[in-house]
């Protein structure tokens, strides 16, 4: 009996040690993000996207269009992209529902990528808009003659600790121990300034909740293989339609392979499991980056004037050619 008690105590002590070790490792992976503010965001040519100064945005942003709040996200202990803390029914909910270019195979995903890494998610920033201050804006509120409207998106920034680089087209990206990529996700709580709802043709309400669930969920502490690229992120910057360089998900439906029993899995191709060797070999293909977006220009890059192209389809019938009334 004494021996049993002794062994139980030893086991408990050992367990305690394991727990302590686990806690310790947890605090390591949950170390504060190295995201820093300020610094010179304009890189020298060629564009360096080893961004350690990804802007962070306050949880309450006031601009001429209204008040954008994401304060509810600050109460979330272990963030994930799919967090939707504004699901109350007192506000009018406006959901973005995107459609995407199809992705026939992993090979096509590799072609769209410039960087494939194994990493662990360190932090996920609060939602913000694609604008200088991160606050709400809408193309119906902004007029730049001759420039095609740019979509206003709700975005979040995911910072990962890079454990291993499987492939990269750019040396500066491959040498980073941390990366931040940006992807559409999240909700914002919105109070519009007087008259703005009418300008937008929105129902007039005291509050709106605007945003969209991500196509792929990511949570802090998660370890996965990430397929990333670089591109110009369109938005409203410095008061005009422009783009800023960013690291983004190669394809918002399929950029993450999760470690699972038996190998790596991707929610876009359910039923498919690849071994790490298979996926790494695919990621190292010479096709890496072949259909990646155009390389971004440094700094804030104003949008080009719209050039009309004749699509070869002159109007052949009047608008509204068909109109029915049922029963």
């Amino acid at each position, binding site marked *: 009996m004494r021996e049993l008690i002794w062994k139980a105590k030893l086991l408990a002590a050992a367990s305690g040690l394991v727990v302590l070790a686990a806690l310790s490792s947890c605090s390591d992976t949950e170390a504060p993000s190295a995201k820093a503010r300020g610094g010179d965001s304009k890189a020298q040519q060629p564009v360096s996207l080893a961004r350690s100064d990804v802007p962070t945005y306050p949880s309450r942003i006031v601009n001429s269009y209204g008040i954008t709040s994401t304060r509810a996200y600050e109460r979330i202990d272990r963030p994930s992209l799919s967090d939707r803390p504004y699901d109350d029914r007192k506000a009018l909910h406006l959901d973005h529902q995107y459609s995407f270019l199809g992705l026939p195979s992993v090979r096509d995903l590799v072609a769209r990528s410039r960087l494939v890494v194994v990493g662990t998610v360190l932090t996920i920033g609060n939602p913000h808009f694609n604008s200088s201050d991160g606050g709400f804006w809408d193309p119906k509120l902004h007029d730049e003659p001759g420039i095609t409207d740019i979509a206003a998106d709700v975005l979040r920034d995911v910072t990962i600790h890079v454990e291993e680089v499987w492939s990269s087209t750019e040396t500066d990206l491959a040498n980073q121990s941390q990366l931040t990529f940006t992807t559409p996700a999240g909700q914002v709580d919105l109070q519009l300034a007087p008259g703005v709802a009418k300008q937008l043709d929105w129902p007039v309400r005291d509050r709106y909740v605007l945003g969209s669930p991500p196509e792929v969920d990511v949570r802090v502490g998660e370890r996965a293989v990430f397929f990333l690229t670089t591109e110009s992120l369109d938005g409203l910057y410095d008061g005009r339609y422009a783009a800023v360089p960013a690291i983004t998900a190669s394809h918002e439906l399929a950029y993450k392979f999760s470690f699972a029993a038996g190998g790596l899995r991707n929610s876009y191709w359910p039923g498919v499991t690849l071994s790490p060797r298979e996926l790494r070999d695919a990621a190292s293909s010479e096709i890496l980056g*072949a259909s990646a977006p155009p390389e971004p220009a440094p700094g804030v890059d104003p949008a080009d004037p719209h050039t009309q192209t004749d699509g070869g389809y002159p109007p052949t019938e009047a608008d509204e050619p068909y109109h029915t009334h049922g029963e």
Partner: protein
Amino acid sequence: MRRRCRFIVLLVLAVGGLAPPAFAHDARRIDGDTEDGCQTSQLYDSDPECRGHWRNSHMYYHWGNEIDDNHHAGHRERFHDAVRHGWVERSNPDSPWHKHKNSSAGTHVDMQNSSGPRLGRGLVAQDDSNAHIPRVLELWLRHDIADLQLPDGTDLSWYRGTGDVPNDQVDAWSAWAEEVGHAQNITHFTPSGADACHVTMSGTTCVGERKRSPSSHEIWHACVAYRRVHNSC
């Protein structure tokens, strides 16, 4: 559980569909008309309690500045085709749905520049539980599609015709059909084993492929809310 639910569904039908909409969420899940792997709740992800329903619903829309330009006539025509041949003709008259062009209308149909692999977007307003069709505030397709490329470096473009889609173009009719589907309160779903390139509401449109006609399953879901009230479709 399944058996119990089926019994309750039959009871609902017997009394002419008087069950409250919230209950019908469960009934819909075990309705016999489901395809393999159909997660019906996913189709109403934006309306999880399935409270939107139909009543001779009308969508009033206007053209945005970009698509209203002459050189986008093809897109306007394919939008009409997507609505007419894709949804209106297939769901009417059982689940009537109509569109009207009106310069002061609330739904903004346009083309916009964007980033990433996005081809389009719907902005749907979930109003109160009595909304007969969610307010669709925006439907747009991507204007700067040339920022997307094939592996050989070829810039993508929209196919704005009505025939077969070339191997280096994306079908505008198919993309509009999906966006208009969001106006039916339907979100993305691909049945198990189906090819997402040929499913209207899959969330993806593939180069060189078509998905212009919603499937009977998708029409069924466009009709479900109507059926719940009117016991037909």
